[in-house]
């Protein structure tokens, strides 16, 4: 067992860290304040350095890196901008990854290169206004008409919705069949009847144009079904298994940013004649932060490592997201406390970290839903005994 990063993983960390610091940092606050996306030159540069195809094979223009390198990259981006980290992880892990896993050769030819190079940005949408945690209760319908399907319905909270081009869309072929009636379609924004609705005004990750999507009689060729029809729910769940590792890495990145800011401030800020970090009440907060972040990191690496080895990792993925997201929240809460009043004002980024952290406990399955997954696995294991 070796718990240290290898040479490639270390170089990935160095490379993404310097990109994030030198190119993204100046934008992070702007995206948040103005609730606007990155300029397109930066999105393109991210394509050149393979951030839109971190694990995609080289033949599609990806970097073909392992899962641990992936989490390292998402952590480093999210340390500087959680909103950019979100866009990248959703594109890579719940759009491109399932496409690569379940896609036909024809689908790969049509979409993999465009996505992995970042020429097109991807998204993944299951959630609807009335179907959140209960994802199998979606109402967007797909009705077969010859060799095409007609899609009608409404999607909510679509990450990359405002800026993306290609979406994996869950729709039901037969609402009565619930989970067993769901199919996933590869849909393009320029298909007639595909409309972007309201872009959400959010508490955090404001640089991502999370939006509604509307489908009015969108006609999609049958060959755009990802995986087998009626197997869509499984495709979605497997996509989320991959995705949650990325969200956990995003949470870790936000937490790291808050922790490092707090530790630096504690060493500098003096009260009662000493740096505040010399007071046990503050140092203990930092100790808890560091311990929690390290534990989260190890859970994330473990899940990514199992995935790399082709072993089951669904529960481990849920556990790392469950844990890393609450650590991020806790770390941001305490980091803000260390900054006192200066943490509460918008001159410093700590309040942004605090607002950004919360979403990691919600999307790609809430913490409660993570506990349902973990709890079910526990009961399955013990009922067998």
């Amino acid at each position, binding site marked *: 067992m070796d718990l240290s990063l290898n*040479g490639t993983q270390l170089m990935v960390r*160095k*490379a*993404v860290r310097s990109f994030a610091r*030198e190119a993204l940092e100046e934008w992070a606050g702007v995206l948040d304040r103005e609730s606007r996306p990155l300029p397109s030159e930066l999105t393109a540069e991210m394509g050149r*350095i*393979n951030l839109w195809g971190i694990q995609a094979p080289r033949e599609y223009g990806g970097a073909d*890196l392992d899962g641990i*390198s992936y989490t390292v*990259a998402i952590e480093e981006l999210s340390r500087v901008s959680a909103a950019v980290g979100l866009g990248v992880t959703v594109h890579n892990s719940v759009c491109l990854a399932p496409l690569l896993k379940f896609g036909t050769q024809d689908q790969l030819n049509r979409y993999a290169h465009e996505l992995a190079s970042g020429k097109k940005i991807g998204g993944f949408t299951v959630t609807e206004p009335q179907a959140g945690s209960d994802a199998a209760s979606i109402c967007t319908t797909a009705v077969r008409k010859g060799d095409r399907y007609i899609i009608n319905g409404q999607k909510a909270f679509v990450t990359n919705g405002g800026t993306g081009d290609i979406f994996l869309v869950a729709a039901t072929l037969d609402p009565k069949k619930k989970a067993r009636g769901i199919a996933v379609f590869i849909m393009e924004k320029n298909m007639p009847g595909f409309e972007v609705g309201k872009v959400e005004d959010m508490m955090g990750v404001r640089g991502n144009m999370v939006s509604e999507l509307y489908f009015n009689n969108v006609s999609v060729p049958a060959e755009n079904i990802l995986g087998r029809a009626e197997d869509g729910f499984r495709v979605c769940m497997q996509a989320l298994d991959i995705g949650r590792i990325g969200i956990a890495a995003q949470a870790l990145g936000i937490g790291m940013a808050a922790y490092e800011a707090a530790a630096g401030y504690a060493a500098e800020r003096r009260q009662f004649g000493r740096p505040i970090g010399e007071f046990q009440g503050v140092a203990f907060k930092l100790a808890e932060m560091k311990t929690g972040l390290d534990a989260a990191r190890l859970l994330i690496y473990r899940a990514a490592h199992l995935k790399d080895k082709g072993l089951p990792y669904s529960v481990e993925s849920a556990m790392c997201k469950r844990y890393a997201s609450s650590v991020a929240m806790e770390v941001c809460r305490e980091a803000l406390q260390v900054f006192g009043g200066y943490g509460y004002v918008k001159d410093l980024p700590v309040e942004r970290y605090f607002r950004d952290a919360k979403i990691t406990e919600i999307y790609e399955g809430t913490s409660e839903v993570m506990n349902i997954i973990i709890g079910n696995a526990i009961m399955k294991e013990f009922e067998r005994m």
Partner: protein
Amino acid sequence: MLSILICVKQVPDTGRALFDLKTGSIDRASAENIVNPDDLHALETALSIRDTVGARITALSMGPPGAREALYEAAAYGADRCVLLCDPRFAGSDSLATSRALAAAIIKTGPFDLIITGREAIDGSTGHVGYQLSEILKIPLVTRIHAYNIEGRYITIERLYGHEYQKIRASLPLILSVGREDNRVRFLRLADIAVSSNTAIEELSMDDIGGREDEYGITGSPTVVVDTRKFNHTRSRESIEGGATEKARAIVQRLKKHGILQY
């Protein structure tokens, strides 16, 4: 096609390292090793020359076996060939002994049309190596390169030197020394990182480059470190009162006093 050699040094990230004030040395465990920042600018110059006129880039590093990491990074940026000059007999070399070894390795692995070094390394900050290579190899050195253009066997260089702006034309081979003002290092592509660890690294020992043992390492190094001290650069703040003209006059007066404004 041009052949370019760049010198790459692995250094502790001194910006984050802790110093042991008693021994005057860097606590190596406290900092990651990185490629010396100026050397990345040297590499960037080589890469942009290759982008425009085509070139084959060799990266040469002298250091312990761990310095391979620096060469893998150079390979990820695009170096075509990587050479590690590694021998326990080089240990403790100062800048002069290092330059002797590098020069011998350059002769052994060359010839090269351009040799590009970083201006200085952040661990020793002597800035000697470029000049010493020039002296040993009898190849001219040009610094402070602002812009350049290669035409056949000639290179036209625009350089900013103090208050002077020069445009010079030099024939190859030439040594260039490059620092962080001279270009902006491109970001690494993740796909290039993924394959860089497969790069073959040629290793050269003292026996391969020749020379006597007493020319290298501690015995070949005339430098003696007498004392190491921590410097605190303190800035003092002063506010100037009065109207705009008075303030401007006061500033000009101070700038002249410190020799910053001379006219």
